């Protein structure tokens, strides 16, 4: 634990909190330009959030504590994850809980609460969205765990900070078959977990094809703002985790001087990944709901192969 680590951890939470809506804005802008449109501008998600915060909060008739608590839990879990995951610094004072299992559980906690809130509204679409989200989550979780486990096997620790540091000191690890297989698996589950095409369409208006949107149909005003902000932060954290597991260069350690560089490097990595994701979406249609498990099973197989390879190729 060092002063630089503490400053870095605070800086990365602030950066994720302020930058996540901008990332969503960049992704929408990339899509708009590829579709020949002009786009609403990068700051539009922040304008939407500002307006939603000033609107009247409405809780539907018959909903309970769960419906009101879910956005807070979701945003809280995303903020803690933003502080724990090594995005900008590996020397965070929270490094002790930057454990692979803890982080995955944190992100799942928010999803589960949102699904429960969807059920709490007792509308047909809320229940449908919740059940679909659980299907996706049940298939995504083992893949995330396995693929990060494959990366942790050669380090001998499930601590994310240590995995990142080891890759930093030993760059040839990135091009090993273990890394490549795990990268493909993790990319697919990141797309599924953040509700992007081809698993879910974030801008759909058709209730029958919704997953994430169907659960939040009943939220209004400040609650909706929290949910959207938290979703943006999850996207940023997952993209940042993906970037730093496979390309950790630029991340700050215990040096305070590296911090501005690390902040810039992290922003650049996440914007590049987000832009690529948005550009890829233009070329793809959403998968049929019943084909999604096949895609996720494929990514699980990749993760399994990565784990197997990490033990076979470990050597004596």
């Amino acid at each position: 634990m060092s002063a630089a680590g503490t400053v870095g951890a605070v800086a990365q939470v602030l950066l994720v909190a302020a930058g996540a809506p901008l990332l969503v804005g960049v992704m929408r802008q990339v899509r708009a330009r590829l579709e020949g449109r002009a786009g609403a501008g990068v700051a539009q998600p922040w304008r939407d959030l500002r307006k939603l915060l000033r609107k009247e909060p409405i809780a539907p008739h018959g909903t309970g504590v769960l419906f009101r608590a879910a956005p807070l839990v979701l945003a809280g879990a995303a903020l803690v994850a933003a502080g724990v995951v090594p995005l900008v610094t590996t020397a965070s004072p929270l490094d002790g809980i930057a454990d692979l299992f803890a982080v995955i559980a944190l992100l799942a906690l928010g999803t589960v609460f949102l699904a429960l809130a969807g059920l709490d509204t007792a509308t047909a679409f809320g229940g449908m969205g919740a059940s679909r989200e659980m299907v996706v989550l049940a298939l995504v979780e083992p893949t995330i765990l396995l693929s990060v486990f494959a990366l942790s096997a050669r380090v001998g620790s499930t601590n994310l900070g240590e995995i990142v540091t080891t890759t930093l000191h030993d760059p040839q690890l990135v091009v090993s078959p273990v890394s490549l297989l795990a990268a493909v698996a993790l990319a697919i589950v990141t797309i599924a977990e953040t509700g992007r095409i081809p698993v879910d369409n974030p801008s759909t208006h058709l209730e029958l094809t919704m997953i994430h949107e169907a659960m939040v149909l009943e939220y209004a005003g400040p609650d909706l703002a929290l949910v959207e902000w938290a979703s943006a932060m999850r996207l940023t954290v997952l993209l940042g985790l993906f970037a730093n597991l496979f390309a950790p260069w630029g991340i700050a350690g215990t040096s305070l001087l590296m911090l501005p560089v690390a902040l810039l490097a992290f922003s650049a990595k996440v914007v590049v990944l987000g832009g690529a994701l948005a550009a890829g979406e233009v070329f793809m249609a959403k998968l049929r709901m019943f084909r999604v498990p096949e895609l996720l099973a494929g990514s699980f197989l990749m993760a399994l192969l990565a784990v197997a390879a990490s033990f076979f190729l470990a050597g004596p």
Partner: protein
Amino acid sequence: MRELLRKIIRTGRVAEDPPARPRGTVPGAAGELRGSVQIRHVDAGSCNGCEVEIASAFGPVHDAERYGARLVASPRHADALLVTGPVTRNMRVALRRTYEAVPEPKVVVALGDCARGCGVFAEAYGVAGPVDDVVPVDAEVPGCPPEPEAIVAALRGLTGR
């Protein structure tokens, strides 16, 4: 995929340059929205002529989204209701409930001649009346169907951009 990429590069930007900002006062409570208006479209009995024009207004050429307007899937997410068609008997209660589900501050836009005064469907047996009879209307867009330019101008009046 390569075909599509080539087409994207060849087509470039199709959005037309934005026309000058329409003058006039901001209707109703839209002044509090400041640059971001989520819209829920309600078809209260339209012939779908207006829907085609709405799709066109949000298409690449007119691109209403660049002014901060966005169509959403739920009235709870919305700031504005975009109502088309004369209100039919079957849609009267539904429109009323949709209006009540929108959180304050909210505005209602009556789109097309049918929504404003029943248009060609006036005095038809299934029609309950114009939108104004069911929910308070803040802005109107005349036309049968209204041109996408007129729809975009009305939406810019709401977003103020």
